[in-house]
């Protein structure tokens, strides 16, 4: 019997074959409910902190079941599945809010904070183009193109992959290759317009790369996806027993891993741990940390938003409304920056912003100074 075949032969397990498999399946499903809900909440940014605890609860169920000797899904599949899912969810949700909720107070503030800190493509002339949101050249095309195609496809593929389905494995390969295209095209676009993206941001270049390093999930997943024994993923005709690992002990090879790929899969698994932790933390804590960095709770969210708008547009008369009609941009009307003429950029085809850098909680002083100026009649 070949090594790859050996890896797919079922073990009876400590409870006997069918009872063992049934209990394993039940526990896996219970863990997955917590993990998928946690991933979705983390991917949605705002409830990310809650999602973190829900996600950890799911991981704890999975680990406990493994310790009890149940035959759980291989850890590397769990890691890759949720890592890529959270990556896609964060991108999808962030870009959907930039398109459809760019003037809602919370996301208006959060996106501008993120932009001012890491990537001024999400700050410079924010809400000035007709559709609203980020104004960086090319950015909206990427957003629309990718939230309609690769990211939802990738989330669906992750669910199939986590269920050890053949189509999930195949579509994860397809969407990970799309991820390679995205990385190459996106970073080329932002380098061409690097002045727009990095002028005046808190952490130019290094900040963006550190933040986005955790999104290299396609590159990490591809070596595993192309070397795993595909028979481990069911096409609907595979008997359940053929999808079980040889053993549940710590030294046993996971299903789909052969002796020749064991070392590669071990390395991929370790990198996945790091990326998953990074993505979970970024999804969970980015918004609260940025709020505090810019001035909350001394300033309210609306005051932070207002002062960022004043800074972005060099106009102290600007303010952020605290309501945003559903019929607003992009469904109707102009975005709030559409008619602004106060920004002072150099260059036209290759714009060079003149935005100054904002330091830690500088916004508090700036806001009070601008308010005093306004109340004294601009003197």
């Amino acid at each position, binding site marked *: 019997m070949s*090594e790859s075949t050996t890896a797919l032969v079922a073990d009876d397990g400590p409870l006997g074959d069918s009872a063992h498999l049934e209990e394993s399946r039940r526990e896996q499903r219970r863990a997955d409910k917590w993990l998928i809900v946690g991933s979705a909440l983390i991917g949605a940014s705002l409830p990310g902190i809650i999602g973190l605890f829900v996600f950890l609860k799911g991981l704890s169920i999975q680990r406990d079941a493994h310790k009890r000797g149940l035959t759980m899904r291989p850890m590397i599949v769990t890691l890759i599945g949720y890592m890529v899912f959270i990556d896609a969810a964060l991108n999808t949700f962030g870009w959907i809010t930039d398109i459809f909720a760019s003037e809602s107070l919370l996301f208006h503030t959060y996106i501008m904070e993120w932009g001012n800190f890491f990537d001024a493509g999400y700050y410079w002339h924010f809400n000035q183009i007709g559709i609203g949101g980020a104004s960086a050249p090319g950015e909206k095309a990427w957003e629309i193109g990718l939230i309609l195609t690769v990211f939802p496809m990738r989330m669906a593929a992750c669910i199939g992959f986590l269920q050890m389905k053949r189509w999930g494995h195949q579509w994860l390969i397809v969407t990970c290759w799309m991820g*390679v295209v995205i*990385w*190459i095209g996106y*970073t*080329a676009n932002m*380098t061409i317009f*690097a*002045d727009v993206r*990095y*002028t*005046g*941001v808190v952490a*130019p*270049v*290094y900040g963006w*790369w550190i933040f986005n390093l955790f999104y*290299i999930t396609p*590159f990490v997943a*591809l*070596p595993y996806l*192309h*070397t795993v024994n595909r028979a481990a993923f069911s096409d609907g005709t595979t008997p359940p027993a053929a999808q079980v690992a040889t053993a549940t002990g710590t030294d046993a090879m996971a299903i789909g891993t052969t*002796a*020749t*790929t064991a*070392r*590669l899969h071990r390395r991929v698994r370790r990198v996945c741990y790091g990326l998953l932790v990074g993505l979970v933390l970024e999804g969970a804590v980015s918004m609260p940390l940025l709020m505090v960095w810019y001035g909350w709770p001394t300033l309210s969210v609306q005051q932070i938003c207002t002062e960022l708008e004043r800074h972005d547009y060099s106009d102290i008369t600007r303010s952020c409304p605290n309501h945003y009609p559903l019929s607003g941009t992009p469904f109707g009307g102009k975005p709030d920056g559409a008619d602004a003429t106060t920004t002072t950029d150099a260059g036209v085809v290759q714009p060079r912003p003149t935005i100054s850098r904002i330091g830690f909680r500088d916004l508090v002083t700036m806001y009070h100074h601008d308010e005093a100026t306004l109340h004294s009649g601009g003197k």
Partner: protein
Amino acid sequence: MPERSPRPAMDERERQVRRALVAVQIFIYGYLAIVIGIQFYMYAHRNW
């Protein structure tokens, strides 16, 4: 120190897959390294 077991032999197809994956990884990470390099070069020479 515990003795390491010798690496198992790979068949020709596994060898080809591994070689292709190494080439892809070198290309992808090489590209990213070049882009990072260009951006840091710009950062060093522009008033960001």
